[in-house]
């Protein structure tokens, strides 16, 4: 429901009150704080206030060697740690022109896509909690545990992976992983259908999401929003296709887009992306070549002076690492362009004049990870 025009405009100050949502609030997904100026239940202004989980990742980049910074990348957006791994090893490989063996690239893609599914499952469940549905969380976490078993077997951790290395991977996968991944793909497809029947087609959910929080493609561009937010506005932008990296050009997949731009469109993009990820995993498993998983890497990493960028499609959108090197073994500057930061920046404009439950539904549909915003 949108507000009547006299409410969408800022009204007289004495008619409004300020509601602080967060830093501790069930809808804050962590420690986001949103200062809402309310007129009754209508939100005249929702201003995100950041920094409650600022963890100095960029400063830490200037304090440790290239390899020592790698574990940090798993803790920026902890839900899509492998994509962030990928971006950072990618930028170093690009600068030093390190050849990565094809087997390593395929395994990177397989594990990254598994990670994307796990991230989307967590988003899905957290979003449904925002909408007041508790049970999907448990279903999603049940499936996610199976996926985490697979990833834990090769990466050694459940959440904050540090699996990729400059020039390859730290571990090769074995047959049990391949069999497990195939089984997971076979098992997950009917589960996605179950989710569609149980949740997506639910009339209450549709009423809650359709037409809520429309974001136009132009607004996305002005704010630099990417990922499911941009694809939910009908723009088929995916870094995996726009700036191809790894072996994505060899794999067939679609970029799901929905033109409506509302929360439902973003929801459907996420659900469709899980299917596409399954498709990518199945193909990559079929094409997986034999060979080493580690290329030739110099013993001491020193990037030639200059600046280098590498972008990946993380679960939340375009993640770019920009490093500046001054020919030392520690970076001179590491800039992390995180998707959640840009995706949240349009929130203030997009949420104006909506009512409180819709504002929070919009917030959930943006798929935010707060440490990813604050870094």
């Amino acid at each position, binding site marked *: 429901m949108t507000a009547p025009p006299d409410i969408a405009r800022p009204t007289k100050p004495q008619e409004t009150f300020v509601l602080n949502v967060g830093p501790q609030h069930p809808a804050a997904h962590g420690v986001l704080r949103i200062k809402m100026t309310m007129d009754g239940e209508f939100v005249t202004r929702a201003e995100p206030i*950041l*920094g409650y989980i*600022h963890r*100095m990742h*960029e*400063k830490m980049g*200037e304090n440790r060697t290239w390899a020592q910074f790698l574990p940090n990348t798993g803790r920026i957006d902890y839900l899509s740690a492998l994509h962030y791994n990928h971006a950072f090893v990618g*930028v170093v490989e*690009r*600068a030093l*022109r390190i050849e990565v063996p094809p087997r390593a690239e395929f395994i990177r893609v397989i594990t990254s896509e598994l990670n994307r599914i796990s991230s989307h499952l967590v988003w899905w469940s957290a979003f449904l909690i925002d909408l007041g549905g508790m049970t999907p969380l448990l279903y999603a976490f049940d499936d996610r545990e199976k996926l985490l078993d697979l990833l834990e077997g090769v990466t050694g951790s459940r959440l904050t992976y540090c699996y990729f290395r400059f020039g390859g991977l730290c571990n090769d996968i074995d047959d049990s992983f391949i069999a497990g991944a195939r089984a997971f793909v076979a098992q997950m497809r009917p589960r996605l259908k179950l989710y569609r029947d149980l949740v997506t087609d639910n009339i209450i959910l549709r009423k809650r999401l359709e037409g809520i929080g429309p974001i136009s*493609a132009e607004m*996305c*561009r*002005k*704010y*630099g*929003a990417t990922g499911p937010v*941009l694809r939910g506005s009908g*723009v088929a*932008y995916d870094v995996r296709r*726009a*700036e191809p990296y790894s072996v994505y050009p060899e794999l067939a997949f679609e970029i799901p887009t929905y033109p409506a731009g509302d929360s439902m469109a973003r929801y459907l993009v996420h659900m469709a992306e899980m299917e596409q990820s399954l498709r990518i995993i199945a193909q990559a498993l079929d094409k997986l070549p034999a060979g080493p998983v580690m290329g030739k890497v110099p013993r001491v990493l020193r990037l030639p*002076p*200059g*600046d*280098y*960028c*590498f*972008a990946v499609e993380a679960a939340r959108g*375009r993640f*770019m690492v*920009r490093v*500046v090197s*001054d*020919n030392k073994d520690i970076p*001179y*500057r590491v*800039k992390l*362009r995180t998707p959640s*930061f*840009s995706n949240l*920046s*349009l929130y203030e*404009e997009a949420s104006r004049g909506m009512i409180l439950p819709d504002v929070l539904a919009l917030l959930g549909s943006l798929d935010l990870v707060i440490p990813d915003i*604050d*870094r």
Partner: protein
Amino acid sequence: MIPSLEQLSARLADLAGAMPATATSGPAPVPPRSPVQPADFAAKGYHLDVTVAPGAVDSAAGILDQHGFALDTITGVDWIAQNEMEVIYDYFHAASPLRIVIRTRVPRDHPELPTISAVFPGANWHEREAHDFFGLRFLGHPDLSPFLLPEDATYHPLRKDFSA
């Protein structure tokens, strides 16, 4: 409307042409070069590297905005040895693989440059962040209060001379 690299180079060169070329990143002195440099995407991760005067970042943003680019991020780099601050603007395009880098340098003790938040509202947050970390002052920015740092923060932690 998907711009070609040549068109963009020409338009941005007009903008940058009036000013002397400055050195790019790296402490080692580099020979003077044209302000608009095509870059090898496979080696660098972007296609065009444009150096402009600090006052021209907003016009550059305007040109890229007309061509349908989106702001990726704004990065500060503190070159303490040269007593300069470098500000790097990354742009990407949703319909083409083109990636443009606009860079400029401002004196370290007087780091002022115009805001581009009027062109790209998304730049508002990036500029606030750069102000937090480097103390860059974006003239005309609506609100440069601490963003990621505590509300009362007066320090700029990513300056190289910062110590906690």
